[in-house]
């Protein structure tokens, strides 16, 4: 068993999803696997909460969905980043960096 995985803070899940999709369209399970992989297993996405976020992002128009066949001949719903989504990703990324930089400063100097 890997060491205790960290739960994702609220709202950041959306950011990670958008980032994951920036590379290429993915379906839900693949997204969850990817996040786990890339974070070197530190982040665990409660798999159930992935889908409400996906649907919400789709409603907001930042990602769009299409059904297609996977490599294993499975029928899956692929999500893809839209233009508006790309812009949103940039905005949120920079906001995140600013936030973490600021917090980091406080922690160092305090």
């Amino acid at each position, binding site marked *: 068993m890997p060491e205790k995985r960290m739960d994702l803070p609220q709202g950041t899940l959306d950011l990670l999803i958008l980032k994951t999709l920036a590379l290429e369209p993915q379906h839900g399970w693949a997204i*969850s696997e990817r996040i786990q992989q890339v974070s070197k297993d530190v982040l665990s996405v409660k798999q159930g909460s992935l889908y409400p976020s996906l649907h919400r992002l789709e409603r907001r128009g930042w990602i769009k969905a299409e059904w297609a066949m996977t490599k294993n001949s499975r029928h899956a719903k692929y999500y893809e980043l839209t233009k508006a989504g790309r812009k949103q990703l940039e905005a949120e990324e920079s906001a995140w960096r600013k936030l973490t930089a600021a917090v980091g400063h406080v922690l160092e100097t305090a």
Partner: protein
Amino acid sequence: MFYRLRALLRRNSMETELDAELRAHVEQQAEKYVQAGMSPEEAARRVRLEFGGIEQVKEECRDTWGVRFVSELTQDIRYGLRQLRRNPGFTLIAVITLALGIAVNTTIFSAISLVLLKKPTFPNPGRLMMVFANNKAKSDNYLLVSAPNFIDFQRQNDVFDGMAADADHGFTLTGTGSPEHLIGAEVTANFFRVLGLSPAIGRDFLFSENEPGRNAVVILSHGFWKQHFASNPNVIGRTVEIDDQPHKVIGVMSSGTDTPLQQVQLWTPVVFTANDLSEANRSFRNLYVFARLRPSVKPERARAEIAAIASRIAQSQPEIEKSYGASALTVQKYMTRAAQVEASLTMLMGAVGFVLLIACANIAGLLLARADGRRQEMALRVALGAGRVRVIQQLLTEGLLIGLAGGGLGAVLGFWGIRFLRTAITWDSYALYLSRNLRLDAATLWFTIAITLGATLLFGLAPAVHASKSDPVAGLKEGGRSRTGGFASSRMRSVYVAGEIALSVVLLVGAGLFVETFIAMQDQNLGFNSKHLITAQVSLSNRRYGNTSKQAEFFGNITEKLHNLPGVESASVAWPRPLSIWGSQTVRIGGRINSATAHIYVVGSGYFKAMEIPLLKGREFSRLDNARSANVAVVSRAFAEKYFPNRNVIGNRVLVKTTEPAWAEIVGIVGNVNEFPGQPNNDPQVYEPYTQHPSLNMALVARTHYAAAACAPLLRRAVWSVDKDEPVEHLMTMQEAETELVGGESFSTGLLGALAAMALLLSAIGIYGVIAYSVSRRTHEIGIRTALGAQKSDVLQMILKQGGLLTLVGCAIGISLSFPLPKLFAGMYGSGFTGGQGALAVAAAAVALVSIVATYIPARRATKVDPMVALRYE
């Protein structure tokens, strides 16, 4: 946006997609674990744990679709409809109760308020006020205003845009074929302007025409123009001879112009002479005063201002004006007052309100009873995770469904009711006028619907209370066949039933009392026998009968002639004619500083006999009372009681301002005549012999042996046999006069009777509903008993006995609660109202009967059910 629409419209496909998507994820995750070496079952279990509940995830996804509210609403509606369909009895009773309550109340209220409330027909009645004098010492209100006071009010106020005066006047139309008596008014030039009206043809008065020599002009009413000029548009400039004086026609009013007071046929300019405006003339109060408020001035301020001016006048003229004041009120208020319908209207509203209450109580009872039976359902929902809000939402939707059905049906029934009434009231021209204007009062409709809907929603929420309070596990375990607590518990049931019965009795008694009071008020003793009485009016021409002795002689002859007519028992003259709404006047009493007020009548000898007014003390007038003998007077009971309580009346002297006023000795007391039917009969009256106070105008009254109407032509001929040039006007039976006055009040009474019957019906339905429901809940119990060997008839008897006991208890409580009601009514409406015991007895009996029947029918049905089925009945 489109996402939402898609979620709304293509819900099914979205659901399948969601399901497929989640399932795909789960499968792939499980596959991964299997490939990592787990057994399929373990992999599946692990995935389930990690994923979280699929249904929950689905629900969260659905939340993001943003259409939760609408989908929940449709869900609720469908569920609600299903529930209602499963309990057809309950649904039917609830909807019918609502519909009947709404329809009946609205229809009857609309009809009766049309009869009682005469709406003004000129613009902005809320801004038009009337000014009246009053005497605080004698609590006399609504006295007319004298000319000097009018001028002072007009000059000194700053709240009115314009103030006009109107003196009613009787004119005689001369110079045409047969002379005719006309009802007219002398008015100030701004009269129509203040009212907001203007002539349809020609022009309004000029200010210069209020001066002597310039006032020989006249404005005609539409009816007069139609009648005498055949609606000829070239009427302007023509001449009309009025009181033997030619008047130039300068204008004609449009049809439907009713000045607030009565049907006036023509208007001429009033002229205030120096005498009219003298200080001494302040006590001659003969003017109606109208005034239009300045914009943004409130009526209260106007009232205060007028009162202030009046008190200034009183201070500067203490002998005449002491304790006289003035007040102002809007025309609408005055017309309601003048018709003295306030009391009747209050009765009406009370009755309608009570019927509404009965309907609401029924609904409440039904809903509460049903709420108890839904405990299991509520427990289940809570156990499945329904939040309190969700439960309330669903219950509200159900309530709304019932409410909308009931309201819709009620509105439809209401319209039919009005339509039916329209075709039913056609017996005379007044009724036709009523039916033309009969309309469903929208305000009442909405109000009734709102109240009943509110009650439905409020009590429909009762199950929600159970849902949040009770432990869901216990509720589920009870399985609907709860034996402990809840409606099925016989104690709770008994309380409900007895409560509904008691409430029904109280409400029924209330409604019945309102109706009885209303009827009693209409039947207030007239004070004379109005049957077989014919009356007409004769107004002598001043030119030919200027001499008072000629007037007396004329009417003396008429009375003789009438006496000699076949079919006439007795005849006399009087002025004014009873039941013609004349105001009261000041009466001085010998030896007192303060004057009295009374209605003044000038009558012939034999008048009281002809009218069958009882003589209580002393004597009536006789032939011996004439112009040469001592002046005498007769007073009514109310006058004696008011001004001579516990003292000798006869022998005192009074002074009345009639023609040739003189101190008269009171020689007799007679019964009181009701000035306005429907009100308590205690207006003081003073009578004087016409031989001592002759007048140009007199009403003839003749009591006939048989049908009064048949004598009409004879009466006319009798008058013309004395003088063929004198007009005979307003020839009618006294009962017609009465109907003219009180309009459709018998119609209202009939309608109110229908209201009471409806109250009864509604109560019956309510009681039946609750009891039937309660008995049906015992079906299970009945099944057990029968299965254990009880005879069906025994079971039936047991239920009936218990039901009978409950009825007794409920009725007893109801009766004891309603005991103080009749006294309360008599106290409030002080009409010497006796009775109400009748209402009590009827209400109790009716309720008891319905309760027994309501117990019997469902009980019998329940015993007929096969025990095996009954046992499984939930």
